[in-house]
């Protein structure tokens, strides 16, 4: 189920809220939330829920095993390996199995290829969450959860189940046992949810329609320079508003139910460096890789060469996490190289001496190029679009100059001429600045009035919108 679906908005959410707030005891509330979360996941994929249950079940046992073998380090390691393997094996099989086999077959010129498996929704997110639980228990950062239903609730809690943010167990362990839902938390959470819904329906979906129009069905078309740039720009807006919208809705829903989730986005498109961009973009994923991969690898504590290696491993894995496809690996490696260059070739201090007005567009440009790689799972098409952006048309017949514009691109640009300006403005931290400048009750009144209008508009737009998938669902 998706947050921006009629079923969710008109039935699932109101009924869940009603049942949840009818009971004050945490056991009941957890029970209702758990049943709702399982239904939320099963809606459309009832069988694949078994994978999540198995993964949680094995890790529940393993974490208890880790805790009970406190004095036997080897035994703890074995429990950890069993738990981690049980989670990762599903991810590897469903997400990467076909990719690895087919890539190996291509490399060895074998004809045997396997078909890709249907990817269980949200498997990348919940696998990482289960992993953080077992690892946190192993590290002594959290106590093993004695109640399997609470552990299952941590993993399956519907606000963050499918597309994050990736919630680390240690951050919510206490909230699973006791939390309070207040009227203020309810209204603030609802407002955040409405804003997220509006970002998705009123901005991301419209940007997505423009992107679809510019990447027509006859997808090997050599794009004009204008079409290639506009498609890249609109996708840059779409992916930000799409994913940050989901995070907003997740955080808002969490707040309604008494959970406090960490922020996942912090206006990434105002970043003055690539590393800053990644401190502002998908923060929970960055934190996961930092805490569970980069630091265990040695982080930056070794030689420069070792740090570079660690960075490249982490960024390649970050790319791979997004999908079993070469474009994602390349996209991750691209960021790895940029961060290495920023840190070791240019040097952070030297980079920061460059005026922000110069750094900002440079970082944005690098980001837009990155999104082109990210968009095309067919690497050749990504390269073609990047070439078109550089004015070069790559065709099977050879290399020619790309045309500057084409009628379709012009039509799309004119149709979406005002709209991207609004979207770009919404990428800036105007709301926080406004709230800082005009704090007070009336600001709150205005914000709730605006949220009400946005919610209404979102519902109206949802009725006629056929373009509604969340991009991050496929990860």
């Amino acid at each position, binding site marked *: 189920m998706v947050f921006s679906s009629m079923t969710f908005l008109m039935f699932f959410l*109101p009924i869940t809220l009603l049942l949840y707030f009818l009971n004050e005891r945490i056991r009941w509330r957890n029970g209702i939330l758990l049943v709702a979360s399982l239904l939320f996941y099963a809606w459309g994929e009832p069988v694949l829920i078994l994978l999540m249950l198995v993964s949680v079940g094995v890790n529940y046992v393993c974490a208890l095993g880790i805790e009970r073998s406190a004095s036997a380090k080897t035994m703890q390691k074995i429990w950890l390996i069993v738990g981690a393997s049980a989670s990762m094996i599903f991810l590897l099989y469903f997400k990467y199995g076909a990719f690895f086999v087919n890539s190996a077959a291509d490399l060895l010129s074998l004809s045997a290829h396997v078909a890709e498996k249907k990817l269980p929704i949200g498997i990348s997110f919940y696998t990482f969450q289960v992993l953080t639980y077992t690892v946190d228990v192993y590290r002594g950062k959290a106590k093993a959860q004695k109640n399997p239903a609470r552990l299952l609730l941590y993993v399956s809690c519907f606000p963050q189940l499918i597309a994050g943010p990736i919630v680390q167990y240690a951050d919510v362990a206490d909230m699973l046992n006791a939390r309070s839902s207040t009227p203020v938390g309810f209204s603030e959470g609802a407002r955040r949810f409405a804003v997220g819904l509006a970002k998705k329906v009123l901005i991301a979906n419209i940007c997505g329609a423009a992107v679809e129009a510019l990447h027509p069905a006859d997808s090997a078309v050599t794009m004009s320079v204008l079409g290639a740039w506009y498609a890249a720009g609109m996708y840059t807006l779409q992916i930000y508003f799409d994913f940050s919208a989901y995070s907003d809705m997740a955080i808002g829903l969490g707040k309604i139910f008494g959970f406090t989730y960490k922020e996942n986005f912090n206006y990434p498109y105002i970043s003055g460096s690539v590393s800053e961009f990644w401190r502002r973009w998908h923060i929970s994923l960055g934190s996961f890789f930092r805490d569970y991969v980069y630091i265990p690898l040695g982080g930056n504590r070794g030689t420069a060469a070792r740090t570079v290696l660690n960075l490249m491993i982490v960024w390649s894995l970050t790319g791979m996490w997004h999908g079993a496809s070469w474009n994602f690996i390349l996209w991750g490696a691209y960021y790895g190289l940029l961060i290495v260059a920023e840190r070791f070739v240019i040097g952070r201090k030297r980079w920061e001496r460059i005026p922000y007005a110069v750094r900002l567009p440079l970082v944005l440009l690098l980001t837009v190029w990155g999104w082109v790689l990210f968009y095309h799972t067919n690497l050749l098409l990504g390269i073609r679009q990047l070439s078109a952006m550089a004015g070069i048309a790559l065709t099977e017949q050879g290399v020619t100059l790309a045309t500057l514009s084409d009628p379709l691109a012009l039509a799309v640009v*004119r*149709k979406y001429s005002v709209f991207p300006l609004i979207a770009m403005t919404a990428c800036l931290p105007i709301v926080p600045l406004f709230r800082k400048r005009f704090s007070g009750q009336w600001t709150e009144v205005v914000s709730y009035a605006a949220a009400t209008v946005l919610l209404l*508009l979102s519902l109206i737009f949802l009725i006629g919108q056929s373009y509604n998938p969340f991009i991050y669902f496929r990860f």
Partner: protein
Amino acid sequence: MKRNNGFFILTMWWFLLTAVIGGLTFFFTSDKERISQRENRILQNRPVLTWSSFQSGEFSDQFDTFLSDSIPGRDFLIDISNKILGSFSVNTAEDLYYMDTSQKEAEDFVRSDDDSTVTGTSDKDAVTGSQTTTISDSDAARFVDDTAYFWLLKNDGTKDTVYRYPKENMMRVADNLEKYAALLPEDGNVFFVTPPPFPTLARRFSQSGGYYSGWESTLTDNMNVLTSDKIKCYNTLQILQPHILDGEDLFLYTDHQWNIHGAYYVFSEIISSQGLSPTPFDEYDYRVNKTTPDAEGHYDTFPLLYSLAPAKNMVVQQVDQKKEIPLMRYEMTSNLAFLSGNRTPWRILQTGFNTGRRALVIGDCFNLSFTPFLMPYYDEVHTTDIRYIYFRKEQLGTTLADMITRNSIDDIYIVYSEANGVDSQTLLSALDNNLN
């Protein structure tokens, strides 16, 4: 504190209101078939919950579509959202036309390609590719050996490729057509027609300001070489070309489909090539309808034929459950007026003629304005659309092969637009998957 309570009550009302709207929609929506003339489609009825539909995810998709299709005041709300969107753009009527038609074409591709039952098909990018490049005459002569092309001809004598058709795709479609031909009696034929959706021509030709002089396609030549004599392939692009170049309107402007005149030209060619005389267009009585205006107020007019003989139109469910529906919906303002729309899974037109022959038309919405012309030549004309969004063997209760033999079909017409054509899963896979 009071204000905080006020915010709480306000936000609670948000959820309460959505629940009320959802409840009203769910409980008070009629189970009768509803048609959106604005969107040219049949709206989703309340889905039936079964384990298989729930397990496959079909129920959840249908339920969500049902809710958004059934919201009270839906058309009004869609108008509002369109007006808001329109106010944020500086597009011209021509832009809207480009956008709308290209999106519709893309939707067709998405629908036809999104067939989860199909794996291991050829690379779509290589299949549906289009590129602006110059093809030499020697390249043009390569057909059958590897690739067929649909080109737009430039005034300077060079060509722009609009579509490429790899040989493996053509061979696969040819094989599929042969399987259908094998089910027909000795004098039966498969007629293969793939009309171009208007955007293909419009985007590249009609609006090019004289940059192009015409077009040509080598697809039909290839297909004729790859298929037996029982299969007749028609080059619709070539048939329609002189008429379009003469300035005739053969496509709707508010939709991506051909109009009745475009359909008639192709029908006439097919019938003439069989040594028969096409019924003259002016023998038909018709009523002229207007299409629903688009966002800019533009509309098409289209003649809606009256049958030459008393005819019946029946929807067939589960092999033999028949339900009569109107032959034409004269009150309708879209292409769905023809044959009462593309309703599934199977249709039978009892034509009122006695010719001793029966035909089956397998096609998308392009068949709607084409099929009525076939009626004087057959006792019965059956129709179906095998795209997965319309057709499931389970719904029909049997296979296409069984229906073809059970109904003693003599001729089969395959009428799928380019978007659902040789490079789509419709003809590459669904045609084969649904046969047996």
